[in-house]
């Protein structure tokens, strides 16, 4: 890990009305590192991700990208940082009005002024990287199975060669085999790009495979963070209960979504 982390989060807070979702998050992610934030449903994982990307404005705290604080920046400057990001959405979030290749090439055509013919070539290249052939390029996203949609969405996330890639529950809704395929692709693609990765998930198999380091989010705070090799000997009751998926233990499940 270099001296300035790629992403440094300090005392990040976010509430919706009276409900405190993030209650002082501290997290460092080094360049080229893959960190997975684990935690149950409704613990604020998605909110954390949305705050970092800039889809939500946190109430207080700082988010530094390459040492620069981005919280409170005007929207136009914030957008410049978004160009460094790629994001794999939970449901894929593919644009169903566009064919697959235009989905993949969307970021290229939007930000780098690449013309359509070149963008199409890049898109087919990226599709090949996630194991999809050229035939898929002209299809509409709705014609694809869930796993294929996830692959296309991954290709879209890596299409602009981002420096940081975010993965929102990458394996949710996939069968175990397809989930493993996606995990392998995530590891392969982030390595090839040398990108920094931040994932949120509650799928422990996926987390173990993707992560260099894990952090556990509970009641708006990071209650444990450490290398994957130490997750089984964390000595933290909350972490133990979560990774073993026990119903009995100190964790109370949230009712409302966060």
């Amino acid at each position: 890990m270099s001296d300035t982390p790629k992403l440094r989060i300090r005392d990040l807070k976010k509430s919706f009305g009276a409900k405190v979702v993030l209650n002082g998050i501290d997290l460092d992610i080094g360049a080229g590192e893959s960190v997975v934030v684990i935690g149950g449903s409704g613990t604020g994982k998605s909110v954390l991700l949305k705050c970092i990307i800039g889809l939500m404005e946190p109430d207080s705290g700082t988010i530094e990208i390459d040492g620069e604080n981005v919280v409170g920046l005007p929207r136009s400057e914030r957008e410049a940082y978004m160009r460094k990001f790629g994001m794999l959405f939970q449901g894929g979030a593919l644009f169903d009005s566009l064919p697959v290749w235009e989905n993949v090439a969307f970021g290229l055509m939007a930000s780098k002024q690449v013309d359509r013919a070149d963008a199409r070539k890049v898109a087919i290249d990226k599709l090949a990287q996630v194991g999809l052939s050229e035939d898929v390029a002209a299809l509409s996203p709705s014609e694809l199975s869930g796993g294929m949609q996830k692959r296309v969405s991954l290709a879209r996330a890596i299409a602009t060669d981002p420096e940081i890639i975010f993965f929102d529950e990458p394996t949710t809704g996939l069968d175990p085999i397809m989930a493993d395929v996606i995990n392998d692709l995530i590891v392969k693609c982030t390595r090839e790009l040398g990108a920094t990765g931040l994932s949120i998930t509650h799928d422990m198999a996926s987390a173990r495979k993707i992560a260099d380091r894990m952090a556990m989010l509970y009641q708006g705070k990071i209650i444990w963070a450490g290398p994957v090799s130490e997750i089984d000997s964390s000595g933290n009751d909350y972490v133990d209960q979560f990774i073993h998926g026990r119903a009995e233990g100190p964790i109370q499940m949230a009712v409302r979504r966060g």
Partner: protein
Amino acid sequence: MNPLAAIGRGFLTLLATTGRIGLFASAAIGHCVRPPFYPRLILRQFIEIGYYSLPVVGMTTLFSGMVLALQSYTGFARFSAEGAVATVVVLSMTRELAPVLAGLMVAGRVGAAMAAEIGTMRVTEQIDALTTLSTNPFKYLIAPRVIAATISLPILVLIGDIIGVFGGYVVGVYKLDFNAANYISSTIQYLERMDVISGLVKAAVFGFLIALMGCYHGYNSRGGAQGVGAATTNAVVTASIMILVANYVITEMFFAD
């Protein structure tokens, strides 16, 4: 519950919503006039809003013109003013019926589709995805719809004017036995430029309102299929009401004196 508190809460909600729509409208207009533009998307919306609404608007205005000729004939015959039928048809169509009927039909057809499409994009995170792909959803989704609706409604209404007058002509000449040449000449004789222009201005405003309401309700929809359904209903209802209110206000502005 205290009934006064309920009334107050309802009133405050109304004010807050009005403010939100106002802010949304000014943001939408701001993005309509500043680059980057998406000509491909604007063209697609023109086809969607303008071209595909032609049959609906054509049928509506055709039969309105026909029934107008029939009704005013039976009415005017009671005091021997049958000669005014052509004038009544053309004035009612251009000033009032074509813009309002076309506006309401397009609100049902296009406003609902916009709210459903944008609402679905919202709940499936496609709008968030746009933002992460360095694309402003206002520019990409909302501006093309607002531009296309504001321009295509006047064109639709102009066509509707012609079809409506033709409907009146058909009934007048083939059913009520007017002389064809006389009917046409009395159609043109009392028609002023302002009658047509006021109708087209109305149409532009209605088009803007339809797109604004469709986009606003879609963009702010929450909570899955039910939220998108509610957004669709709200888009059509609010657009229709705003069309009727704006219709009165614009008429007042044009023909006050």
